[in-house]
């Protein structure tokens, strides 16, 4: 079995009286594509925010490649190799597309690294445009390019296909597949076609707890998952 690259145990976080993440144990295998699914408000974004350090846990331990990173601030975790792309697009709208990605590149040949990342998401021709003038879908792709330019060990994508056209989704799926096994991908995704097509394993969150985990086939067959989630408004394709 592959090594565990990122591990959480007993991770919890409450907002006021609301237990958004409730004692989650989680393991990410090096080189896999792991999907995190669950209904709206299940705690997915909160959970990955704990992993990336954007918010602090109330309890629990996070390990990256075996070392405890629970106390590391977010920027240090990014440097240690955990990249996060926001669910709500977060770019530098007044800077050029090139500068957006350049800010993610550390060391080496800046221009070459930027253009390589832009080429992978198909935005190379738009390098000189002001990022805020891109279409919504292109802004999402720009964010993915920024994530790639960080050359992370773990790439966390929070609903990356939201707002992409059907044609763009196919390209996106191919892109993600090309990242592994060098990069490990943790993908939050509502589009079940994308999840089933990409994921090696799936974790289902509901009310801040792990409802189920397993391979794609196991999750598909799990009656609890079907009841809580797949039977809902995000029906499985």
């Amino acid at each position, binding site marked *: 079995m592959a090594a565990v690259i990122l591990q959480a145990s007993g991770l919890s976080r409450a907002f006021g009286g609301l237990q958004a993440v409730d004692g989650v144990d989680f393991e990410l295998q090096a080189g896999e594509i792991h999907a995190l699914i669950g209904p709206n408000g299940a705690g997915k974004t909160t959970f990955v925010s704990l992993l990336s350090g954007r918010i602090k846990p109330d309890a629990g331990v996070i390990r990256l490649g075996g070392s405890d990173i629970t106390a590391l601030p*977010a*920027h240090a975790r990014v440097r240690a190799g955990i990249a996060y792309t926001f669910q709500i697009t977060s770019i*530098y709208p007044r800077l050029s597309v090139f*500068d957006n990605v350049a800010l*993610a590149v*550390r060391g080496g040949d800046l221009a070459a690294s930027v253009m390589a990342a832009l080429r992978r998401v198909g935005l190379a021709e738009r390098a000189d445009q002001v990022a805020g003038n891109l279409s919504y879908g292109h802004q999402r792709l720009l964010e993915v390019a920024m994530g790639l330019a960080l050359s992370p060990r773990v790439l966390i994508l929070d609903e990356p296909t939201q707002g992409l056209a059907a044609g763009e989704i196919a390209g996106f799926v191919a892109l993600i597949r090309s990242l592994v096994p060098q990069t490990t991908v943790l993908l939050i995704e509502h589009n079940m076609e994308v999840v089933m097509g990409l994921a090696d394993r799936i974790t289902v969150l509901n009310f801040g707890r792990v409802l189920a985990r397993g391979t794609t086939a196991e999750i598909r067959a799990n009656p609890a998952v079907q009841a809580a989630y797949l039977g809902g408004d995000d029906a499985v394709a």
Partner: protein
Amino acid sequence: MSVTGKIWALHLGVLVMLAVAQAVLPAYHANNLARIMVLAVFAMGYNIAFGYTGLLSLGHALFFGFGMYGMGLAVWQVEWTFFPAVVLGLLAGGASAAAVGMLALRTAGVSFMIVTLMFAQAGYLTVLYFNQYTGGDQGFAVEAFARQVFGYDLAQDTPRAVAAFVLFAVALVLNLVLVRSRFGRVMAAMRENEERSRMLGYDVFHVKLRVMVISGLYAGAAGAAFGVLFGYVGANFATVQYSILPMLYVLMGGAGVVLGPLLGAVVMFYLIDIASGLTSAHLLVVGVALVVLVLFAPRGLLGMVRERWLPWLP
């Protein structure tokens, strides 16, 4: 011409024009220009923090004052000569900005404005309180021996103009290099989207602290130079008015434009100069000018130029 070529041609051209202006202008205006150039260095430091990095400080008078008093007290109390005294002023500006930044940068937005304002006010009151060492609100003259550089006397117009120009030229070139560097891009990233920057691996506090120190060094250099060139150190230079002044220059000339502080300083200086010749209510004229600016060129004069005609203006 490449963009880099255009940028350097423009900025070196401005420096040449300033040198020529210093040489040909009548003494009154040449002297004004020396003052404007030193104050523009102060405003350039403010622009680095506010215009480029988005740090809206209301306490820059403290750093300017530290520069001025660092230089002045070294001359008065321990009889240091020009170079060590001015370098001490420069470093005092940077160190005071580091100290204020360590505390104030734990806040943001309005709190940051208030905390920096409080520190500057505390600095001003400290000068008054220790009046036996600082001269209090009377201030003190910078003695003649400290105003000698390479055998020239800074009390005379030409050496003073040259010294002001050299300071300005060095500050301008360094400012240009800074904002076009990789770190300059990171500064803009802080201003544009702090959370995104954190999640690209930047230590936001650390970056801002470095910017504060750079900004403080500019303010300190300007404060020391102002004292030594014009021969006087006084508490009025540490009042809140001197925190607002660089902000007005930057807003007028264009925040986040290297030449903005210079243009803003020239315009505001002469606006006040002309208005106070016409009416005792010259601050009213300044107010009206600012309202007009906000209505017609909210990004300042050069901000508007960049928006309409010169998108490459750094």
